């Protein structure tokens, strides 16, 4: 059995040491190679903008350590990123050891986001070229070192399986033996990367490097850390967002065995105890009065009405092609619809948690986060310390889906830890996790199309309203009322639409925080556009597949996945009564995906998703097993959203509390999922989220095929589908 250790994050001491080694040309004896990722995909960047972004470290003992700029939350990045480096470095995956990157925006910023974060399905997209170049550069330096030692031509040497071989004589040296000398070699300016036909690792199914610890209980998530002397705390925050703590009677709580301390914050109370059992019992014993503040009577309906009103006003123009207004006026038929999508919680299986040891002049944090530098910055602010006094240890993530791009949990933990002597692990109850999530925004779309006499769409006008998460999370990326996430999937559609006009109206709902949620912008926009194109096919009395195909002559990759999915799903073959098939097609996260859902609608209106056929063109496949796994995963996530997903507010409070009221798809409800991949030599596209955005409209369209009822809101209202 291969054992892969996933080391805790390097501390600043480690990082300083590493920088020292670089600067002192390997005083410690080993090769460290820093390399650069360009800022912004495919754009020329001036030399000054290049910054070292990640590290390969080869010790004299032969240990190859890769520092991972992206975090592992199930998506397989701790296997596919090492594959990119190992491919060019010529080492086997079993030879590498992984480290989480410490917070450092300069070194580890995601090139597609410009900040150090793992999200938007862009780890492989960002890393594809630079990380292979990093591996190749290191390999060339190792070969140069060996050639120099042997006094032979570089061209007569090659690298394979962690060693350099002098081909004519068969002499060989392990990388570890060459590390110190390799560090003295000049860094090659241009490296030639392997051609696809030379790949040994890329494109082959690689076993996950993080799998063993996840089947025997040894994998360490943030919630599992136990610094010596740690106390356990759990908290209750104002049930109405923006409310304040008025008073708390903690006499009963303090009498509970194991309860050590009650911590009061402006808008929350925490119980610190020897163990979570005592902390939860203490929490239940608190008698709290809240000043509920401005949002005490807010309901979801209030927010929906505000968004509906907003779609009547002009917004920022996200994309304009041709003259949609004129084409609409000239159209033979006009089709119009409004769509609503609900707030959604992330409900990661690992509830929010963060462990903090606040020592007055410094602060140490243990957490699993998608955005370590953001956590560091916000925790430092909450602690009242400079960032360099906040050390963060990142961990495996028990589900991210966007929730762990936020730092609110760490900020809370710091606020509590400031009042606690010694380390404290703050663990949210599931109820707190669901009721104080930061939610996928509520969206309202008003969309219309004009069809010509043959039913072909000649005009497309869409105006939608909702929150821009980017505007809060990455303000510089929100410009002129628009951002690239909120509009992804609403513009640049795969179909030929000659007169096209899309506007976005930003509305930040009061009294409920919003955040990224798996499949982000497309989770909303693909639902609307793919449902609506299906409406147009129905209005034109045409087959949903043929209607789409006729609009794809200019887009062979989209057409190919659609055709493949249709073939595999046996589109058009008869189905029993009550069953239907529905299509969704998208180009999102740099990948093309067609999905066909087969559903059954029972007499009581309940919907069962039986089968989902997916055809994917994600460009070059790095780890085929990950592609399969991520599409399966994304589909299940989307099926949950379609069947159950809804967060509602009543009197300012989130009504859902736990997995009984916020249901997640279970084994007995899970559809069969088939994933068919189109072979492609294009650069890789993102995989982690695509399956989620497409499946929701595919299900809606299948329900329409089965019942003739169009679903313009999610989740599915089974009452409305009763026979």
């Amino acid at each position: 059995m291969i054992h892969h250790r996933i080391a805790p994050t390097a501390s600043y001491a480690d990082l300083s040491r590493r920088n020292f080694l670089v600067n002192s040309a390997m005083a410690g004896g080993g090769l460290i190679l820093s390399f650069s990722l360009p800022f912004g995909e495919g754009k020329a960047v001036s030399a000054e903008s290049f910054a070292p972004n990640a590290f390969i470290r080869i010790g004299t003992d032969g240990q190859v350590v890769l520092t991972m700029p992206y975090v592992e939350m199930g998506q397989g990045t701790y296997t596919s990123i090492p594959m990119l480096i190992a491919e060019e470095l010529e080492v086997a995956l079993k030879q590498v050891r992984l480290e989480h990157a410490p917070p450092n925006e300069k070194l580890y910023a995601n090139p597609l986001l410009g900040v150090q974060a793992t999200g938007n399905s862009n780890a492989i997209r960002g890393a594809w070229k630079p990380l292979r170049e990093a591996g190749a550069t290191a390999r060339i330096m190792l070969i140069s070192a060996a050639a120099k030692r042997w006094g032979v031509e570089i061209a007569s040497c090659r690298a394979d399986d962690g060693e350099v071989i002098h081909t004519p004589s068969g002499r060989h040296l392990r990388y570890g033996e060459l590390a110190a000398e390799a560090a003295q070699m000049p860094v090659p300016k241009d490296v030639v990367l392997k051609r696809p036909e030379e790949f040994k690792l890329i494109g082959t199914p690689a076993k996950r490097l993080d799998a063993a610890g996840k089947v025997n209980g040894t994998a360490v998530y943030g919630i599992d850390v136990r610094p010596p002397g740690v106390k356990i705390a759990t908290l209750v925050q104002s049930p109405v967002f923006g409310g304040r703590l008025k008073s708390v009677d903690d006499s009963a709580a303090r009498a509970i065995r194991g309860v050590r301390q009650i911590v009061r914050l402006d808008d929350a109370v925490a119980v610190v105890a020897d163990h979570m059992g005592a902390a939860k019992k203490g929490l239940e014993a608190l008698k709290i009065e809240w000043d509920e503040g401005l949002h005490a009577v807010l309901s979801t309906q209030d927010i929906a009405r505000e968004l509906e009103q907003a779609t009547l006003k002009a917004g920022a123009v996200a994309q304009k092609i041709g003259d949609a207004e004129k084409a609409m006026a000239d159209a033979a038929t006009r089709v119009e619809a409004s769509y609503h999508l609900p707030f959604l919680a992330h409900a990661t299986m690992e509830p929010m948690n963060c462990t903090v040891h606040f020592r007055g002049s410094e602060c140490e944090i243990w957490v699993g986060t998608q955005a370590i530098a953001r956590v560091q910055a916000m925790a430092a602010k909450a602690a009242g310390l400079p960032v360099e006094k906040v050390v963060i240890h990142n961990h495996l993530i028990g589900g991210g889906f966007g929730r762990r791009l936020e730092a609110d949990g760490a900020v809370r933990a710091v606020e509590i830890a400031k009042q606690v002597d010694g380390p404290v692990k703050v663990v949210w109850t599931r109820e707190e996790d669901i009721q104080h999530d930061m939610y996928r925004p509520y969206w309202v779309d008003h969309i219309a199309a004009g069809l010509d006499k043959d039913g072909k769409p000649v005009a497309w006008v869409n105006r939608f309203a909702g929150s821009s998460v980017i505007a809060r999370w990455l303000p510089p990326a929100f410009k002129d009322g628009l951002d690239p996430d909120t509009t992804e999937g609403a513009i640049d559609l795969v179909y030929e639409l000659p007169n096209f006009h899309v506007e976005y109206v930003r509305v930040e709902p009061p009294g409920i925080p919003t955040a990224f949620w798996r499949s982000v912008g497309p989770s909303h926009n693909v639902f609307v556009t793919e449902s609506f194109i299906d409406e147009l096919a129905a209005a034109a009395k045409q087959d949903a597949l043929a209607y789409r195909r006729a609009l794809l002559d200019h887009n062979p990759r989209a057409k190919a996945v659609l055709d493949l999915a249709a073939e595999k799903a046996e589109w058009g073959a008869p189905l029993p009564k009550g069953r239907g098939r529905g299509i969704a097609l998208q180009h999102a996260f740099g990948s093309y995906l067609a999905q066909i859902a087969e559903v059954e609608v029972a007499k009581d209106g309940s919907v069962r998703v039986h089968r989902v056929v997916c055809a994917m063109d994600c460009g070059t496949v790095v780890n085929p097993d990950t592609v399969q796994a991520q599409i399966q995963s994304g589909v299940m996530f989307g099926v949950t959203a379609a069947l159950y997903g809804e967060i509602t507010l009543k009197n300012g409070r989130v009504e859902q509390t736990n997995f009984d009221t916020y249901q997640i798809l279970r084994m007995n409800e899970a559809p069969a999922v088939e994933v068919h991949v189109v072979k492609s030599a294009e650069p890789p596209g993102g995989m982690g989220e695509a399956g989620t955005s497409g499946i929701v409209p595919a299900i809606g369209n299948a329900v329409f095929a089965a019942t003739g009822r169009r679903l313009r809101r999610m989740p599915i209202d089974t009452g409305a589908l009763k026979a």
Partner: protein
Amino acid sequence: MAYNITINGTLRSVDVDGDTPLLWVLRDVLGMTGTKFGCGMALCGACTVHLDGSAVRSCITTIDSVGDSKITTIEAVGSTAAGAKIQKAWLQHEVAQCGYCQSGQIMSASALLAGNAHPTDADIDDAMSGNICRCGTYVRIREAIKLAAQSPAREG
């Protein structure tokens, strides 16, 4: 008061209130963090352990209800024949994604296989529907249970 409980073959003494859920005794008192917290209400199965071989949710199993029953957790389930087969199948099928729920999934699947050498799809649904996986690894969980059921008994 102090409770003496047998965990993974070892007698342990813990001094907590009798209504303390076993989950927190394992994780916070004894430092056995392989067993996970998900919901606290037996709705998700992340905290599943074996009590005399049966799958139970440790988040609602109070310490005073354990008595002489033998507790097995994810840390030691690999020493049972069924547990070893399940863990091996999990690796072969690359089931885990984020992996957080997988301790509980493996405990439920091991208990199923120990009591039913050849589970049908319906048996799998019955045994596994109490375990939520937010990454949606259900397709592979089902395949892995079937693979484990086919593997020879000796190989564990």
